[in-house]
């Protein structure tokens, strides 16, 4: 449902372009907004309704292949726990920022699409704090 708050126990996945990855390590640039973007696009993993993490990753890889111009060989999927992400940013950001993470389904192409809101465009600190809590990294290309 559009605008639904994603539970803290759930997870989101961020597509990290190859230009944000070095030797498999994800840079803070993967969590920066492009000028004019309202929120950071992610996918709500539990919304994919797949039986395992491996099948969730496969689902995302298929989605990216359909969605993007080209999925680079070095591109990665970053998995983040919603609660850990929000808590880390709230605890460590200077303004105690509590990031809303909301379901933003794109029907019919990307029903698990979600957004991380309130990321400032002009400060890299939040992106550095998000990259601290990346739980898993997977290839974005199957």
């Amino acid at each position, binding site marked *: 449902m559009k605008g639904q708050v994603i539970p803290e126990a759930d997870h989101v996945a961020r597509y990290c372009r190859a230009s944000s990855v070095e030797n498999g390590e994800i*840079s803070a640039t993967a969590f920066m907004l492009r000028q004019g973007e309202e929120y950071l696009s992610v996918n709500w993993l539990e919304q994919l309704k797949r039986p395992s993490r491996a099948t969730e990753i496969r689902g995302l890889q298929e989605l990216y292949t359909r969605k993007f111009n080209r999925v680079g060989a070095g591109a990665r999927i970053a998995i983040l726990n919603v609660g850990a992400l929000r808590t880390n940013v709230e605890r460590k950001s200077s303004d105690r920022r509590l990031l809303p993470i909301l379901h933003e389904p794109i029907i019919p192409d990307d029903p698990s699409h979600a957004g991380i809101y309130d990321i400032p465009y*002009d400060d890299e600190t939040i992106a550095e704090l998000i990259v601290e809590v990346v739980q898993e990294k997977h290839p974005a290309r199957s």
Partner: protein
Amino acid sequence: MTEEARDHSFGRYMTAKKAAVAYGLSENFEHERSLAVTSSTAAASGRTFTIVESSDVYVEAIPIGYPTVTSLRPGAGKTYVVISNYTQASGKFGDPLQIPHTSIITSNIPETLFTIGQSGSTATQQPPTPENESIEQILWRVGTSLAITYRTKLVSRLSELQEAVQEEEFDGRGITIRSLQHFIEFLEARPRLRCPAVSVTPDRNIYASWKSASNRVFSIHFFPDGNVRFVIFRPNEKHADEVIRLSGTATVDVVMSIAAQHGVLSWASDERPSNSRS
């Protein structure tokens, strides 16, 4: 020299570098005083390399103001490869200091190490200016003349990033040139900095990071106009479990003096911090 020819020449240069490394030479073989190979690889086994006096080498046309690779064959049974930014239309080297001896490598056995095609003479060409420099020219300059120890690694990473950005974006454009130029100027002025992790922001600017732990982070976002935004995470020496986090905006020429006051040199540089707080 046309854009296409420059790209082609740069490609040849990188090919030669890779070939030399694959043959058993180190990545920075141009700078080594001795080119004796001790590699245990099958390709290099039993072979030796010597430095050739520049006075013995006949140089064919080399493009003005542009680093180049050319093949030379001054005597039977030997093929030489020169990698330099030396400029000379043709003839013997007039000033041997203009091209380091270590730039020339040769096999002691009658075989070709690697063959690189000769580029045409472009004696009237002028070096590129910062305003019209292409990404390839910047990378070439970095790879051949930047006085930093990790320049080969840096060129490789920047080439990879340029390719990735061009692939990712629908318009095929790459890294923002002015951002890259400011990043290179920054490194050039601070040769003791360690090689940063480099990535590209969604707006195609260079983002460099020096991290040694979650509480030792120094990152700079290089904007095309010469401004930067920086982030510093550093330990709070009065409270072991606490981290000091700060961010700000500055110009590229002063950001390091600001950051140095927060002790970033202790993890971002090989220098001993002089006025660090930590």
